[in-house]
């Protein structure tokens, strides 16, 4: 077992984990944060995307021990004080989800992307989502949601 100390959603979590444990299972099964989903075993689908030190990471491609000493943010932390994050609100209002299984990963990937590129074009959003698969929406309303969130966020900054 390996000892890890990870700050997850602002709280320091200490645990002894199997060295082979993936970050996603550390989050889901050790910490009970089941909002992050697993959709594949080839790091293709992006359902498990979380933020590690503010950058999007597919949590099935990272070991829990690699997260030692780092900050992890999951979907559970996005709605601060009960109010939805602008990305969550935009997904809701633009019908950016259907079954909702890919949604946490989409939102985390989008959160990281909008930090890098706060005013993206549709094409840039589409390129940025290349690593996140959705089978329900055809992406059109996901793209629309992220563009909408971008303008909400830049409006909030202005």
């Amino acid at each position, binding site marked *: 077992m390996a000892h890890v100390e990870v700050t997850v959603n602002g709280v320091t979590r200490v645990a002894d984990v199997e060295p082979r444990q993936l970050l996603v299972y550390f989050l889901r*099964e050790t910490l009970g944060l089941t*909002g992050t989903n697993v959709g594949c075993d080839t790091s293709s689908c992006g*359902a498990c995307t979380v933020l590690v030190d503010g950058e999007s990471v597919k949590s099935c491609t990272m070991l829990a021990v690699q997260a030692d000493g780092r900050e992890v943010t999951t*979907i559970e932390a996005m709605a601060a004080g009960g109010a*939805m994050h602008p990305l969550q609100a935009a997904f809701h209002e633009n019908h950016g989800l259907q079954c*909702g*299984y890919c949604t946490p990963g989409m939102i985390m990937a989008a959160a990281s992307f909008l930090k890098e590129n706060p005013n993206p074009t549709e094409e840039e959003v589409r390129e940025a989502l290349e690593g996140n*698969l959705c089978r*329900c929406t055809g992406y059109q309303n996901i793209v629309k949601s992220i563009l909408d969130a971008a303008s909400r966020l830049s409006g909030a900054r202005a």
Partner: protein
Amino acid sequence: MATAEKYVGGGVLRKEDPELLTGQAKFIDDLTFPGMAWMYVVRSPYAHAKITSVETLAAVSMPGVIAAWSGNDLADEWQGSLPCAWPVTEDIKMPAHWPVAKDEVRHLGEAVAVVVAETRAQAKDAAEAVRVDYAPLPVVTDSEEALKDGAPLVHADLGTNKSYTWTLSAGEVDKVFAEAPVVVKERYYHPRLIPNAIEPRGVLAVPVPAQGEFTLYSATQIPHVLKTAITAFTMANMPESKLRVIAPDVGGGFGSKLNVYAEEAVVLAAARRTGRPVKWIEERSENYLSTIQGRDVYQDVELAATEDGKLLGVRAHLVADMGAYLQLVTPGIPLLGAFLYHGVYTPEAYDFACTGVFTNKTPTDAYRGAGRPEATYAIERAMDALARRVGKDPAEIRRMNFMTPFTEPTDVISGLKYDSGDYGKTLDRALELVGYDRLRADQKSRRDRGDAKVLGIGLSTYIEMCGLAPSQVLAALRYAAGGWDAATIRCLPTGKVVVVTGTSPHGQGHVTTWSQITADALGVPVEDVEVLHGDTAFSPLGMDTYGSRSLSVGGTALYFAAQKIVEKARKIAAHELEVSEDDLDYEAGTFTVKGAPDRARTIPAIAFAAWTAHNLPPDTEPGLEATHVYDPGNFTFPSGAHVCVVEVDTETGEVRIVKYVGVDDCGTVINPMIVEGKVHGGVTQGIAEAMFEEGVYDENGNLMTSSMANYLVPSAAELPSYQLDRTVTPSSTNPMGVKGIGEAGTIAAPPAVVNAVVDALSHLGVTDIGKPVTPERVWRAIRQAKGGAA
């Protein structure tokens, strides 16, 4: 309080969203129970082999392992095979299909043993220690090869690889084809498709050993059908009354969760044997082997026509790959398209035949569209071929062959009665939106200039058959169950309303849509309606969600249940107001006395009165609750016109979608936002089928496209935005006039895309390119047309 707001037709935001957006949803893998053990399945690395031995001893001695069983070890758990509910002909060959193979495996990934352990990792580790010896057998992977003499037999005991041949014929087929001045012959192949719901399957069985009871949680589209079928046919000594099935939040299905699967039976058996909750979660790599796949159909299609392109006859002969076994509705999938090969046109002769064939591949079954994409592809591709042959524009050939607009049930040659349709209207609107004439001019000028990048325009004027289904029609097609659905409305004393539906949504938004219908019918705010689904304990009646049936069958059941509520409430209101029922007007949840509108009773007030039961009319039961079970009198027939515009690089074969327009007619629309979302998703799956996705097996039955890394589920980066519109031709089948929209895009898109690519290259002599139209296939088709080697 009653409200004047009308919800039906409005863009009510989804009530399902908050928990999905915040990570609070409960999908199958999010559920945990005290004492829960994990199951892992050992799967065959061979497509066809005798199992000579299964040795589990080493596995059982590993850390945390509770048990390990072979197929023979589990044999007394079953009363029979996994169920196939659709024996399409009297003489169909139906092989035994055990949840865990006993002595022979017939496709890659078939279960040969299972391990149950304390943790996910321990179960997986121990599975590697199960030693299985195999004696490989000859493999057949192609359905047409499998029909040839001397082909390896998938099931030696059946003596043939042919499962069945099903036929349908109308009119003087031979005469029409012999005498027709024009006959167009086409041949199409629909590759294997892997459904890829982003949530893999998963099963969790929780036993109450002292009572012999089980709760089965499954990522399924069909909790009701599953409960009945698995206890009636598969599990030994498990009374249906002792099994409760719950579909928790389910992450997409597309037909792939419309089944009774081996793992559902085995997890139940494991929970029974260990007396503990047992969970199995499918890995994606398993999903590619053990979850049903779609399509894999050869079609020989012929159209007979006059010299100027008037359609006289349609002939479609199919060879459909069943895979190694018949799953729940495997043999029936081609039949869902069998009546639609004439599309929205009016030939006088019709001939359909389908032969279902066993191969050493994963079983096929329902995948979004199920039979109807194949039919639509055949007729819509062939209509373009006919247009080229007689020198007509693809829009013109369609227009001259459309059924004339109709609003009442109308007979078509295949024996169906289409519910309503105005096919010219959708096509006109689609052509207007896409700017058809301008595009044709652009296409011509690019050709005249000799541009390397050419333009192609593809039309698809599709029709589908939804609202499965009138139970008597299903009986005639030899389907084992009915096609009805059920809804219960319970008006609570506080004015809130609970709806229990027999449909089982997994992304479709039934909670929102059903709330809209109920809120309008009973005059309550949409947020006061709670919709419950997916649990056989509180919703005993249901036929679940597939085939774009939920709104037109389950939604109609809800509509009638609301009418029953209003009927009973009217009696109570009349009694309280001391007038006759005929003296009451009803609108938006409020009864008023004719001529005295201040004398009124609302549904919530009547619900309270019905609960206290202090002053009810004689012979009136307390409570305000109604159930309706609706068996549709006919199918519904959504239709539409999709137009795809592509740019094809003749030097590289690359295809880029420049524009995609879809005009759909799904009858009355309850929630336009949800309808559009389904078209987006459906079109995307159709484009994926046309351009990207193809499940490929090698000659030994190994799946070469065995993960998302090499089976190309498209991402946002590969796709355009779509431009959508609708026409509304209310269905004559049900009182709301709804038709269904879940599969429309997937049915419409593939021929629109491929017709566009062929159209782009038609001046070079290209007449066909197989799906998916990859750059390589396009490039080879161009080379071949130019006289070079393909």
